[in-house]
């Protein structure tokens, strides 16, 4: 009984040491490193130390022939966490230490037993490795060590020479060891688990912050990287990370500053810090933790900031600027800030990349649209001129009128395709076009327009209607021998603004070519501006009607 108490005392010392280790910066979460060789080496060292310490903290009995010890804790836990090989290695190392450093009749059997206990832990690991949440429990640690210690006693009993002495040793050490070791293993596991959970919590909090930053900056970068965006960015990062100060620079100047030191770190000033210059020139994260290396403000000697991480913002390897996280002298720069800073940098860089991609897609769309217009309009122009030449002979006033429509149409066409127009302007543009077409096709073309007046001020991308109506005329009506009717409707429906362009030829076929391209581009531009819920759709009843529907939000496109 006295031995049990002593052993528990030893175990307590032991646990305190282990607990301190777990709180120290040397501790790394064990779970995450399981599969990697480096993690196994670390586990081996840690648990061998635990097992060897168990030897020294043990209580010698029978004049040092045997030691009541807690070596099994190290070996069994090593097996449980790292598998059979690690368990055996830790057990054998501790066993060899037992035999060579501390002699005694029970030394060799004990060494064999410890090795086997390591193996046992390893086998349990193999059996439960697919369910780590059940492996890393106090219960498993307790049961494995309990069984291991019974085996231990049996080995000591049979292997100790001279033979009779084994029985005596076991009589003395069995009870304390079989009780104390499992309890110790269970407590170790508890400490480990608690530390692990805490580590996870910190990681989760850090990811949550990074995600929050990402969420709030989403769309910010789309406005282009400049002083205004930088100001918002600095504020957001400052609020979400809670660091002392946040700076944003381009490659030459400070663009924005939020937090401590704003009085002298004014936006517009040149970059002074060597850390920032280094970060920009090397496209790398630079770091001063304030202990080994301090941030030394070049602007003001009064500056309270003394630690910093500088993260470059880059697109395709080209640095656009940096984001900097500062802490003042009286606050420790947390490692977490470093990971967080790096994460935010990577995130913002990818947002910049997305922005660049969007811009290029936009450019391409505009270029395509211009191309389509350039291809279509000359024929329209020549046909219109031919008509006007004929009309000039018979009715000069009407010819003047048509020329007015023609110039109006081309003036609107010159408007850059990236701009927005009101529905009213779009209808005027289309109206000029239709006047000419009516003059060309005479009685064969009838246009009916029905527009909800409350939608007239709605904004939509310029050139939304014209290509669609041109398609309707070109492929629908002018291809019909008799009269063709085009209907243009704009109304509110199901909370959206719906513009329908309908012809009664029903000649739409889903093939490539110029007309399909024009419609596709109109659709893409709307989707790009307003999302996938809006855009162009086509319904066709062959030989009866083709209806092109443009769906837009009631409020139109907001600037």
């Amino acid at each position: 009984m006295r031995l049990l108490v002593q052993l528990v005392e030893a175990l307590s010392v032991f646990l305190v040491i282990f607990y301190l280790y777990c709180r120290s910066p040397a501790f790394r979460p064990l779970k995450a490193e399981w599969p990697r060789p480096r993690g196994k080496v670390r586990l081996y060292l840690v648990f061998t130390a635990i097992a060897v310490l168990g030897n020294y903290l043990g209580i010698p009995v029978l004049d040092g022939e045997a030691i009541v010890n807690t070596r099994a804790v190290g070996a069994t836990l090593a097996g449980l966490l790292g598998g059979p090989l690690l368990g055996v290695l830790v057990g054998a190392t501790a066993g060899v230490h037992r035999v060579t450093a501390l002699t005694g009749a029970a030394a060799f059997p004990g060494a064999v037993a410890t090795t086997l206990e390591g193996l046992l832990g390893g086998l349990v690991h193999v059996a439960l490795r697919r369910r780590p949440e059940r492996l890393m429990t106090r219960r498993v640690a307790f049961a494995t060590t309990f069984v291991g210690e019974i085996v231990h006693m049996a080995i000591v009993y049979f292997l100790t020479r001279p033979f009779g002495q084994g029985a005596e040793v076991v009589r003395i050490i069995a009870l304390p060891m079989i009780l104390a070791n499992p309890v110790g293993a269970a407590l170790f596991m508890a400490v480990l688990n608690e530390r692990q959970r805490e580590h996870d919590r910190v990681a989760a909090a850090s990811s949550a912050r990074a995600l929050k930053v990402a969420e709030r900056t989403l769309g910010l970068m789309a406005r282009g990287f400049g002083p205004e965006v930088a100001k918002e960015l600095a504020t957001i990062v400052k609020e979400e990370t809670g660091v002392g100060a946040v700076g944003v620079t381009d490659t030459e100047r400070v663009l924005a500053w939020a937090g401590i030191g704003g009085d002298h770190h004014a936006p517009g000033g040149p970059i002074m810090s060597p850390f920032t210059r280094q970060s920009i020139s090397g496209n790398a994260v630079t770091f001063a933790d304030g202990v080994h290396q301090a941030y030394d403000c070049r602007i003001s000697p009064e500056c309270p900031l003394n630690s910093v991480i500088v993260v470059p913002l880059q697109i395709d390897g080209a640095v656009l600027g940096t984001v900097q996280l500062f802490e003042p002298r009286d606050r420790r720069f947390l490692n977490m800030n470093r990971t967080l800073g790096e994460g935010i940098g990577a995130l913002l860089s990818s947002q910049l990349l997305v922005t660049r991609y969007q811009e290029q897609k936009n450019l391409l769309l505009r270029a395509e649209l211009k191309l389509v217009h350039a291809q279509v309009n000359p024929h329209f122009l020549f046909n219109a001129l031919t008509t006007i030449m004929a009309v000039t002979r018979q009715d000069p006033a009407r010819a003047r009128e048509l020329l007015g429509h023609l110039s109006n149409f081309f003036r609107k066409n010159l408007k850059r395709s990236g701009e927005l127009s009101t529905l009213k302007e779009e209808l005027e543009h289309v109206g000029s076009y239709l006047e000419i077409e009516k003059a060309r096709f005479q009685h064969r073309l009838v246009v009916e327009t029905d527009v909800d007046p409350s939608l007239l001020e709605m904004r939509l991308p310029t050139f939304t209607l014209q290509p669609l109506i041109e398609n309707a005329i070109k492929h629908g009506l002018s291809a019909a021998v008799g009269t063709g009717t085009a209907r243009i409707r704009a109304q509110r429906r199901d909370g959206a603004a719906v513009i329908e362009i309908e012809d009664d030829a029903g000649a739409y076929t889903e093939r490539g070519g110029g007309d399909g391209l024009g419609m596709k581009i109109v659709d893409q531009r709307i989707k790009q501006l307003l999302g996938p819920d809006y855009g162009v759709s086509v319904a066709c009843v062959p030989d009866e009607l083709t209806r092109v529907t443009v769906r837009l939000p009631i409020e139109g496109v907001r600037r």
Partner: protein
Amino acid sequence: MMRALIVDDELHPREELALLLAQTGEFELVGQAENGVEALAVIRRERPEVVFLDVRMPGVSGFDLLSMIDDDVMPQVVFVTAHDEFALRAFDEDAVDYLLKPVSPERLARTVERLKQRSAPSARPAFASAPITRIPCAGKRTIKLVNVSDVEVVKSTLSGVYVVSGQGEYGTELTLQVLEARAGLLRCHKQYLVNAAAVDEVSLGDGSNATIRTRSGHSVPVSRRHLPRVRELLGI
């Protein structure tokens, strides 16, 4: 004076061109057609020497029209269009000239010169016509284009040529000769063509004539003169 026809689906360009032609004093205008079907009728009736032909027209394009004209009434062709991209094909079709809209009197004068050179009696143009795959027929207010593969029978009656398909019967301005030569339809009677793919049954009568029944149950007489060839092509 050359007898001319203007084919264009738009009124004003027709009027404008008619005026320009009149100003040259070289043409006698025999008509104006606003689509291919009308044009075919006028060409058969009036036999113009030259056709001023728009390319883009509803239903039947200018090129389609060329492949539908009987060889013996084939006029000289001048294309008149706002599109310059058809020019190569136009000359491939042996057109005399290719005018871009709007047409100027100076340019038209050169066309007249070319026409005069070509109008030597020997030079009837031989258009390398594409096979006809769709037959234009007069619909209510549209030109109905009937796919040749849907056609079962074509018959020539006093009131005109009719294309019979599973869906119905449509009048067309194309002649049996053109359809036989360019649409791959089989002549079985002086007044009938049949689509070999649509033949369902051939009943041989007494003597040397026969009757063909098509998929949709239309009966077509086979005359003595055409029976050997029909038998040969149908493999009976």
